[in-house]
């Protein structure tokens, strides 16, 4: 088993391979330094986006979907032949690989296609909605991350104490409340019973009253998760031997936590926080449906429910890009934060 990992592949077999020298150069650059890491991860990112876009393209263009699309666009009572001829005349019958390449070309030029649901160009519809969701996501992160970290640190620094138990119970309760659960409960409490807030949120209206419910809904679920990871990481670090060294050096407790423990304990939560962005994408879809906030998530659902192919493809591309970019940032951040890997 170890033979493959450790013995060099005999170069003779590949010497005649064109671009052999380039591959060797690439391998060497990739192994050196932070730039190598970024380049290799970017490459993987592009590969992933390509693969995923192929899958989505294929799934979206399945025959039954296309037939439904034809019926919606033209006439609901078309016969089978009319459906096929409509598809033919609109170019849906060409080989799928050709259509994919065309679409890829169009996207790289910035042309995202035409939305059949909104009857506008996708590039007129998408960016604005994306912006609304971006705002929402921003406020969620600002509310959620510092609170969660603080909770986790306070709980983990004295593991097993009463404050730990209380804070841990709180966080575990919040992990049982997905967005549609917490949203409902908050709406019932704040909107129906107390009447403080409205049950719907208008996109583009940046006020506390407007945003309070959706932000709370999303923040609660993620809060618990991040707090628990932080607590676990903090508790693990507080049990390490170098903390004992710091304590027996005569350092007071608060300095031990701030100077020695935090730096090591926050490495794991950082990765987790970065990976919350993809979760935000899903959460946002639910929340926007709940509160009728017309942002990106709402757009995605509309596209899916209405077979709006171009819009759906663009939305998928955006989601995939968000996920992959945050994975990249998480990887790089992990390496930067960890002196053992960063400095040799």
């Amino acid at each position, binding site marked *: 088993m170890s033979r493959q990992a450790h013995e060099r592949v005999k170069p003779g077999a590949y010497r005649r391979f064109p671009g052999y020298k380039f591959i060797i150069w690439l391998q060497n650059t990739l192994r050196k330094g932070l730039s190598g890491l970024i380049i290799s991860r970017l490459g993987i990112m592009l590969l992933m986006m390509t693969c995923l876009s192929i899958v989505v393209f294929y799934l979206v263009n399945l025959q*039954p979907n296309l037939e439904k699309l034809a019926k919606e666009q033209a006439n609901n009572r078309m016969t089978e032949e009319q459906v096929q001829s409509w598809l033919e005349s609109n170019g849906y019958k060409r080989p799928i690989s050709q259509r994919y390449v065309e679409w890829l070309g169009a996207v790289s030029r910035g042309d995202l296609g035409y939305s059949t649901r909104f009857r506008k160009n996708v590039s007129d519809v998408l960016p604005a909605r994306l912006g609304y969701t971006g705002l929402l996501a921003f406020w969620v992160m600002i509310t959620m991350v510092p609170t969660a970290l603080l909770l986790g640190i306070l709980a983990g620094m004295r593991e097993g104490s009463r404050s730990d138990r209380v804070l841990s119970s709180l966080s*575990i309760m919040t992990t049982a409340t997905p967005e549609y659960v917490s949203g409902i409960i908050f709406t019932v409490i704040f909107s*129906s019973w107390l009447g403080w807030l409205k049950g719907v949120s208008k996109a583009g209206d940046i006020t506390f009253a407007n945003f309070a419910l959706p932000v709370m809904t999303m923040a609660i679920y993620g809060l618990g998760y991040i707090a628990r990871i932080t607590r676990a990481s903090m508790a693990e670090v507080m049990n390490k031997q170098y903390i004992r060294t710091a304590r027996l050096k005569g350092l007071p407790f608060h300095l031990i936590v701030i100077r020695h423990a935090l730096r090591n304990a926050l490495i794991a939560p950082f990765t987790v926080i970065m990976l919350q962005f993809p979760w935000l994408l899903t959460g946002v879809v639910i929340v926007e449906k709940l509160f009728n906030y017309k942002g990106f998530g709402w757009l995605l659902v509309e596209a*899916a429910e209405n077979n709006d192919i171009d819009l759906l493809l663009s939305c998928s591309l955006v*989601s995939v890009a968000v996920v992959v970019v945050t994975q990249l940032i998480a990887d790089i951040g992990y390496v930067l934060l960890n002196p053992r890997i960063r400095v040799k």
Partner: protein
Amino acid sequence: MQQLSASQIFIHTVICFWPVWLGLAVIFTVSIASRQKTGLYGRIFDSKVAMLGLSIVLFWILTASFAELLAPFDPLEQFAALKRALPGIIEQKSGLPFLFGGDNLGRDLFSRMIYGSRFVLLIAPAATLTSSISGVLLGLPAGYFRGRLNTLLSFLANLLLAFPVILLFHLLVTPGVRETIIPKLMAGLIFLLPIIFFMLLFWSRYGARRQLLWIQLTLVMAFAGWIYVGVVFPDAVEAIGLSDLFPGLDPNELNIFVAVVFASAPGTFHIVRGLTLDLRTRDYVAAAQTRGENPWYIMLWEILPNIRGPLIVDVCLRIGYTTILLGTLGFFGLGLAPESPDWGSMINQTRGFIRIVPTIVLPPTLALASLVLGLNLLADGLREESLKD
């Protein structure tokens, strides 16, 4: 119409659940008495947190099992007079109350909540187990062999993880997709993996003992084949006329099952791979290698038993996530038929009436939250216990 007061509702509800309380009492007494001998299960009873979680989970399991006994009404039956009824209103003909009120079509929310647990408790554990077996089957070689296999499998897992779940559901669970070959293909793949797992399990250990091996393999193939044919090829089975003999899933349920497995498996894969990478450097693995054991034996019989702690905790948590996913599906109307009492779709259907009757939306919401909470508590407690070892 007559209506019960809040305290009366409470008392009625508690009394209604009597089979469940009885079942819980029996199970707990037996388990606590025998906890020394039941390994990891027994350890649950050493931790208050785990016991609390287990009681909630068992509550729902028993509710789902005794649904016919517990529900006063048929979940699909509509009572025109009781549309959006307040909790506690009594139905004229039978004299029984709508304990939690009625939904917008006049159906008893209490009964629907009880029957709704069935769907979740059937699909979530089964889907989680299947996805966990797939994750284990792929994670073990990725961690053990490392090198290119590891890179490839990790890339595929990341690919699956990067796929937005909502989109996946919308694309897979729509009626249109059902007509294509895709669900069959994916179901075929997904159900194949556990079969491969069990075959490898027996072959790697008993490979030398031919007779024993043949018996085991035949049993596995028979049982698995029976399920496989029934689930993946229901049309063929129906054509032959044997659909009573084979187990089957509603096409909707099959799609949901498949989508959920795809969403869950990469997570288990990551955990198993990480643990395997750690354990493969141990001396007992090296000892097995020096004996000339084949790699699958080492992965399945030397490494796997030693990661069962974190794996079980992960399975518990994942059943929770799967429950949430199923709720999400229902919320988007992508699940079962609209009249079926699945919690997610119940939430979606009743949320429009929050302003009128705020409590109309609470039964499925709180039921879902409590089940997930119970699973998370159980997982947390188990994790703490296994660390204390």
